[in-house]
């Protein structure tokens, strides 16, 4: 697949549970070699969407292609070329590392199975521990095992569902470095995450809340789409100030960031009016570019209001 070619190209993907659309007409396009971040609060439909992409769930509506195969009708072919890492560790805890890898290799009918398993174990850095039961591994090692197992059949697209949840920062950094190395070789990634720093390591992102795709593009594009104005204020008694600000019209969020408070809204004029009474000593106000997190919180707040209606 050439760079730039669409690996995932779906439109109108929809899934209902109990009459409620948990994924609601989501369109998504992912290009070859791209690391695509999929963000959204818990229960927003990320897992459900990934499952529909790889044929684990039947979509109620929607069409398009995944790796050139029809996303609705050709899930068998898609499964062969996709690696899917589930949100919860889903390998067999009563099988050893080696047995798990060997099983996966057999399921994909690998020609040089033993060699592939051995190489995977070496890549993992688990040579000598391959007989250990998967259930005895720590969270970080389980995550590495899962990723390695997903890669064993040389998939073209990897769907990773919150791969770094519960993993320590060092392991997370190693993980992301590996992802970038693999992407450079032409692998495509669709990764769901909660972490802002991870979102910023993706080439492009999409934000989903309550089943609806609210924004997508590069980090800057997403921030631009939200159209937020943000002021940073520092000084004494910030928690008290935050309370007062939140109570005012024209302010969407007032969030503490270290020693400062970020105050934002998508209506710049209303915001300026709202903070006017507080723009005096001992407070120090400065207009700053909005961050991704500000943008996401704003998106979430707005969609919550919409959803409640």
């Amino acid at each position: 697949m050439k760079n730039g070619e669409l690996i995932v190209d779906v439109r109108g993907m929809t899934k209902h549970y109990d009459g409620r659309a948990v994924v609601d007409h989501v369109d998504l396009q992912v290009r070859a070699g791209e690391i695509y971040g999929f963000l959204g609060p818990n229960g927003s439909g990320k897992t459900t969407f990934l499952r529909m992409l790889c044929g684990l769930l039947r979509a109620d509506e929607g069409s398009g292609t995944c790796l050139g195969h029809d996303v609705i009708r050709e899930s068998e072919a898609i499964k062969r070329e996709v690696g899917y890492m589930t949100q919860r560790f889903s390998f067999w805890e009563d099988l050893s590392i080696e047995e798990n890898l060997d099983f996966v290799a057999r399921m994909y009918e690998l020609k040089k199975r033993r060699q592939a398993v051995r190489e995977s174990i070496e890549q993992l850095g688990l040579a000598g521990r391959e007989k250990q039961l998967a259930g005895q591994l720590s969270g970080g090692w389980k995550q590495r095992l899962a990723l390695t197992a997903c890669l064993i059949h040389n998939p073209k697209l990897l769907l990773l569902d919150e791969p770094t949840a519960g993993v320590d920062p060092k392991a997370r950094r190693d993980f992301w470095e590996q992802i970038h190395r693999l992407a450079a070789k032409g692998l495509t990634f669709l990764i769901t995450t909660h972490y802002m720093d991870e979102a910023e390591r993706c080439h492009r992102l999409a934000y989903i809340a309550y089943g609806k795709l609210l924004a997508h593009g590069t980090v800057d594009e997403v921030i631009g789409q939200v159209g937020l104005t943000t002021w940073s204020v520092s000084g004494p008694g910030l928690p008290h100030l935050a309370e007062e600000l939140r109570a005012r019209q024209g302010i969407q969020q007032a969030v503490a960031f270290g020693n400062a408070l970020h105050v934002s809204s998508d209506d710049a004029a209303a915001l300026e009016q709202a903070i006017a009474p507080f723009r005096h000593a001992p407070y120090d106000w400065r207009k700053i570019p909005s961050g991704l997190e500000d943008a996401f919180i704003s998106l979430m707040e707005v969609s919550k209001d919409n959803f409640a209606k």
Partner: protein
Amino acid sequence: MTRHSHFSFQRLLGIIVKEFTQMRRDRLTFAMMLGIPLLQLTLFGYAINADPRHLPAAVLLADQGPQGRTLLQAMKNSTYFDFVRQVSTETEAHNLLARGQVQFVVNIPENFSRDLLRGDRPALLVEADATDPAATGNALGQLNAIFSAALLNDLKGPLESLAATDGPIDLRVHALYNPEVITQYNIVPGLMGVILTMTMIMITGLAITRERERGTMENLLSMPTRPSEVLIGKIVPYIFVGYIQVGVILVASYFLFHVPMQGSILLLLLVALVFIAANLAMGITFSTIAKNQLQAMQMTFFAFLPSILLSGFMFPFRGMPPWAQLIGEVFPLTHFLRIVRGILLKGNTSVEVMNQLWQIALFAVVAMAIGIKRYRQTLD
């Protein structure tokens, strides 16, 4: 671009290896494999098979010759029979039986000795109270041997040929009150079917639901596996478990319960394969239908109870009303019981066995087909 989906032996092998490994590490498997057969054999086998002796018997003796007395003495010496009453009429004898005062009435007709020595094979009637067949089974089972041994001395010279053929007397046993006598020989081979039914359905009933509950199903389904590969792959390892159970039960039947083994054990083992497969197929089908392990267990019992009640294990099959017989005919256990008893006790051969076997095989195929059809390839 789409490769056609095909049945893959490599994937099948992969699933078999996986299931085998998991089974090996699961203590429950061993509990099922050895614990259940031993427990059931002990419960059913020993509780019922306490080989009772010194059973009260009455005698209705019309014969004047010595041979009748020889036989009675031999029965007494066997310690199975104690002659507590001598009666002179049938009515009197039947009253004793009806009141449970005696377990047997031995009826030696007039001219028994004379007819015996003439080689006329006189009839000797033993009436037994078979309400508790386990109580009478052993005693009745020994009768022929007792008589043959006893008459060995009397039938010398020209009469020797009599002893060799059908036996010198025409022994007639009437089991009263219970048309189909279930003896220990009946129960222990039957237990093989019952134990296999119970454990095989239960063990595979959990096979798919366990994957669902542990969350590994999502992983399995994300790989390009076909339903038939998964289901067959999950069944095969348990065939070995089934065979180990068959082995345990056969050994126990032979050494502990002295069940005669008239027919071919090889034939029995072949039949067992079909029977085990049928139950595994039923279990795995439940597993595809059940939402969780509890439901799978409940389904197991819903299948197991009627099997055990209507198959002829608990109650004589011919004693059941026609509708119950009709239902009973569906269960593999019903046919397996007939086969096992036929092979072990009657020395049946493949000709008689085929009559029942195809019905078990049909059941297996249908159950498997339903399972494969019901197996959901998505998480919906």
